[in-house]
């Protein structure tokens, strides 16, 4: 029963990892950009939520109303002001610029909030649970998992059934032709990054409710999100959810064997899948 419990908790944890990963997957799909600062932006969202909750006295879930559009705006501005200048055939500039951003965000958070671990207090909902047989399911992990499913279904629907989704796919296929068809590439890229960081904001707030965080917590989140994307297969959003779940289950099972193995078990499952299925389990596009 303990093992079943570990697997179920792992699946729910996978929902959070899928939220870490969805933003990465989205911008890679639209503009082949890999954002090294992604993890730090997740942590930045958690800190923004912390500021909103303390300044306005809102609960962290209500703070999403401000943090999600706020991060979306930051994403759009970041893309238009800086990242668009790095887009091109050479992969070095975007990589190094986002790496620089990562260091800047970490140290700015260190100045603004000190290195003390913080967390977001969501009140009674944090410890609420529902009993299914002999297994207790936390309400918060269920909300997170449900949100991940809704976010991924929403992104999927947007990609294939809306005008902006068509613009994303067109730019993804052939940037120059999309430009000729009257799409403003710079604007499309900005929207993609804005959307990516709006999802990131959700991930950051849920992270802050689940565990404590500090300015250096971002790199592990980037790595978990990245592993979920690769396990699931590039360009496949539902695959990303599956990748998150596989990673979550690997970690909770590893922790069950020995608490020191939790993170290591996730990395080993990732490397094993990379060795057996280098393109991930459900690939859509080439890296």
């Amino acid at each position: 029963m303990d093992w079943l419990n570990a697997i179920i908790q792992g699946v729910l944890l996978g929902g959070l990892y899928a939220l870490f990963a969805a933003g990465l997957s989205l911008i890679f799909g639209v503009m082949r950009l890999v954002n090294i600062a992604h993890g730090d932006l997740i942590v930045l969202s958690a800190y923004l939520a912390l500021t909103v909750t303390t300044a306005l006295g809102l609960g962290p879930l209500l703070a999403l109303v401000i943090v999600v559009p706020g991060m979306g705006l930051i994403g759009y501005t970041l893309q238009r002001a800086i990242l668009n200048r790095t887009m091109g055939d050479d992969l070095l500039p975007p990589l190094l610029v986002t790496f620089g951003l990562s260091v800047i965000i970490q140290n700015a958070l260190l100045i603004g909030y000190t290195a003390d671990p913080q967390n977001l207090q969501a009140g009674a909902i944090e410890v609420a649970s529902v009993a299914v047989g002999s297994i207790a399911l936390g309400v918060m992990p269920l909300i997170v998992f449900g949100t991940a499913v809704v976010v991924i279904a929403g992104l999927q629907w947007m990609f294939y059934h809306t005008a902006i989704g068509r613009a994303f796919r067109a730019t993804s296929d052939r940037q120059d032709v999309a430009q000729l068809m009257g799409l403003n590439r710079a604007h499309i890229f900005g929207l993609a990054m804005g959307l990516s960081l709006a999802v990131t904001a959700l991930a950051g707030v849920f992270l802050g409710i689940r565990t404590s965080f500090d300015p250096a917590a971002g790199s592990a989140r980037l790595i978990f999100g990245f592993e979920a994307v690769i396990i699931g297969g590039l360009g496949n959003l539902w695959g990303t959810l599956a990748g998150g779940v596989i990673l979550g289950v690997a970690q909770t099972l590893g922790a069950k064997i020995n608490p020191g193995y939790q993170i290591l078990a996730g990395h080993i499952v990732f490397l094993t899948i990379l060795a057996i299925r280098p393109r991930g389990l459900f690939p859509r596009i080439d890296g």
Partner: protein
Amino acid sequence: MTRMHVTRRTRLSTAALILMLPVLIALIAAPWWAGRADLRLMGEIALYMSLATLWNLLAGYAGLVSVGQQAYVGLGGYLFFALTMLAGIDPYAALPLAMLAGAVIAAPVAVLIFRLRGAYFAIGTWVMAEVFRLTFAQVSSLGGGSGTSLSASIVRGMADGRSGREAVAWWLALGAAVLVIGAVVLFLRSRQGVALTAIRDNELAARSLGIDIWRTKFIVYVVVGALTTLIGCLIFLQKLRISPDAAFSVNDWTAFVIFIVVIGGIGTIEGPIVGTLVFFALRETMADLGTLYLIALGLVAIVIMLKAPRGLWGFFRDRYNIEIFPLSRRVTGLTSKGS
């Protein structure tokens, strides 16, 4: 009629290489003229210069942008501690052994992470470094998560007296820097190096000329892994203490190194050298600013990447057409009349 021929040497490069000899002799004699703190700082500069040169070969020439080279720095440190303290091997023998082990470990790692491309390769290297860190944190005979110190008997066995040990540490660091820079220059002048430059300039064209791209990159990755392991040994021989977080720090062994190379000029031999000197000049004058200094460094790297992607040396080279290490081919004997 003058005959055209192709040469790599210029008057400047020859003069610079001749000038390097007295500079090197002066550096070897440093224990007799430099103070204790200066010697230590110079050792650190030499080791960072080596790390930057190696990362530049990987990213600037082979297009393998790794953000996980701390894997090999930490591996080197831990191997050196394990070989000397647990296996009882002489420290001077442990250095080449650790380097060999670094190559043996880098080979299967390369096979695995070469499946990832571009930026995903970068994060894959980071995952590898995390795997190394978490693995060494489990080794209780090396102190587990809290780390361990190098036994005093091993340090004492390396040279007599404190100043003798400090001189040896400096000569090892200087020797490593000369070895690394020399090896990279010779490699780039070799057939393999030309192949590598061709791949950097145009992978498709290089492939159509019969260059085995995977093999060339594999060799570069393994050699860089081995040499980075050696530098890791020397870094932790200087520090005398190791812990998983310090050994596999992404900030210390990768972020700083990347900033050094970007600021100095990626894809040139001189760039990492110039970058290291600029980096340490900034650090020695601005270190009091702490985190603000790191933010400034990140900003400078971003601005350089956007405005002058070839870095300081690239800027000077393009402007004045100079090169200190004879690498690019130049045609001489061309006259302006074209006769």
